[in-house]
């Protein structure tokens, strides 16, 4: 054991003499890890946003066959039947429309969801809180904007007046809702929005909170078997998970694709570094072997050097991704609802660990062949060099 430790330390001490090639390996690995962690943190952030703010008892009822709130709809009497379901403790029939607002970052128009909500809406979103201004008053052309929307889109400051649809709207408050997707939205009361958008008495969806999360199946069965209704009933969390799946899958696939290509590059960098290290030190290694050191000790020491370089690269890359991207907020089109979702990159400990594991794998693979070559070098010919 000690022999391995000492020759490993010896390898490491000789790194300054081979700084150039060692840096190539470290930088390559750092790049891979930074890109991978950044991309995955984007996918993770997106998922977080769509999944947070949901609570286990929350349900969403859409028209059967609709893929999102945008293409869902009920007549008022249908909404009333749903709202009267005995399993619901809280209920909010809601109207969902898309309005055009200017994106601050690009000064282009973007689709922003606007929601007309019922009285229980804020209570259903468990972490709903007004952080600036006040709540809208029902019946008036007033709206409150989610924190994310207010950050990303122009004109959403308390006291401002916006014009869209046929109406002018006063922005009276900013809210948060536990980082969930509602924070990308504008809210007003449902009757006001129905009026402004000539929706008559129709609603898009019904949100509700079950009195007991365990009664979901009972609730679902009751609604789906009602001959007056044709509905799709989902837990809110499942609905959002599904909404985020397309984009997060896309991002993950692209992210892993890029990372794999970069990882191949970094792997060759690591291989090159370690082959150079081994051939530079061929005579030293042969001398150690002559003294009686085992090939195993040589392999381990070369591997340890490769892994340590990779680890350094991994830590740098993960650190960079964390510094540059954690909490970095962007808005993007959610493919499923064709409206903007505001979300923050989430560089989680899990992703950092994943990045570092990838780095170590690159080190392991990149170090193995050179290590074996080093150990198999015939002593006598290496001593002649």
């Amino acid at each position, binding site marked *: 054991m*000690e*022999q391995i430790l*000492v020759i490993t330390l*010896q390898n490491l*001490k*000789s790194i300054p*003499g081979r700084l150039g090639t060692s840096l190539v390996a470290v930088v390559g690995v750092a790049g891979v890890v930074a890109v991978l962690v950044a991309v995955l943190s984007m996918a993770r952030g997106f998922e977080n946003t769509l999944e947070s703010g949901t609570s286990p008892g929350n349900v969403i009822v859409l028209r059967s066959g609709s893929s999102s709130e945008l293409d869902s709809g009920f007549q008022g009497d249908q909404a009333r039947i749903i709202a009267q379901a005995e399993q619901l403790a809280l209920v909010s029939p809601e109207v969902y429309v898309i309005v055009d607002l200017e994106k601050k970052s690009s000064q282009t128009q973007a689709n922003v969801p606007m929601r007309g909500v019922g009285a229980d809406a804020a209570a259903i979103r468990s972490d709903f809180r007004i952080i600036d201004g006040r709540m809208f008053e029902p019946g008036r052309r007033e709206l409150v904007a989610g924190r994310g929307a207010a950050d990303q889109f122009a004109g959403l400051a308390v006291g401002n007046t916006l014009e869209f649809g046929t109406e002018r709207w006063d922005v009276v408050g900013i809210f948060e809702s536990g980082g969930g997707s509602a924070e990308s939205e504008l809210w007003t009361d449902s009757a006001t929005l129905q009026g402004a958008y000539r929706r008559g008495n129709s609603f898009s969806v019904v949100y509700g909170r079950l009195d007991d999360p365990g009664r979901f199946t009972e609730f679902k069965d009751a609604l789906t078997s009602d001959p007056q209704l044709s509905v799709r009933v989902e837990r809110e969390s499942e609905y959002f998970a599904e909404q985020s799946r397309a984009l997060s899958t896309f991002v993950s696939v692209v992210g892993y694709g890029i990372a794999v290509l970069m990882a191949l590059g970094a792997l060759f960098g690591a291989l090159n570094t370690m082959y150079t290290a081994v051939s530079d030190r061929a*005579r*030293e290694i042969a*001398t*150690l*072997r*002559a*003294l*009686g*050191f*085992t090939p195993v000790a040589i392999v381990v020491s070369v591997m340890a050097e490769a892994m340590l370089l990779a680890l350094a690269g991994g830590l740098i890359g993960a650190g960079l991704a964390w510094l540059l991207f954690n909490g970095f907020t962007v808005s993007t089109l959610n493919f499923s609802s064709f409206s903007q979702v505001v979300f923050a990159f989430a560089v989680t400990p899990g992703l950092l660990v994943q990045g570092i594991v990838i780095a170590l794998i690159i080190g392991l693979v990149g170090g193995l062949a050179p290590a074996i070559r080093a150990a198999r070098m*015939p*002593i*006598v010919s290496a*001593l*002649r060099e």
Partner: protein
Amino acid sequence: MNKPIVTVRNVVKSYRKGREAVEVLHGLDLEIAQGEFSALMGPSGSGKTTLLNLIGGLDRPTSGEVEVGGERIDRLSSRALARWRSNHVGFIFQFYNLMPVLTAQRNVELPLLLKKMSSKERRERAMTALEIVGLADRAKHLPRELSGGQEQRVAIARAIVSDPDLLLADEPTGDLDRDTANEILDLLGTLNTRHGKTILMVTHDPVAAEHAGRTVHLDKGSIKAGEEAA
């Protein structure tokens, strides 16, 4: 003559060069007695290093027997051979082959890492070896801070630190000036006479050979008749 510590019997060594095998040693016989200081001379390419490597267990003969200290080292597995080397021979190279990032003392300690002993004992043994070669005051120096002669002394300390019976030196003074070479040769002489080390030294230098009690001449892979001199 003392009983032999090294017995080489009918050793053939050939190297593969591409498809054909080149025979370097042709059925060579040699005995070296315990306590002897021998010089191995011969033209370049005659197989001196090859023979030394066989005796030191760094390489194996193509055929024939190599017996050192009563052990048939040509028959040992590579693992066993590595362990045998660490216990029974010390190597001294022309270019010293010290580890550049280790201090003199750490270099000398290297062979002891293969043995069970406390780090304190290692340090003490290394210091003793450095004292024998007269370099105790340079223990903390790196090889690049030492002269060639001093580096070779450190290498000799490394060769003797685990107290082997046999020292094998391949042109130990080949890279040194006359005076420094003489100091190294005197040191080897002392190790031979005072510490009882058997030494086999390859050299091109007749002056160096004079320090040895016996000179073996190798030519084209065979021992020349009338090898005994001095």
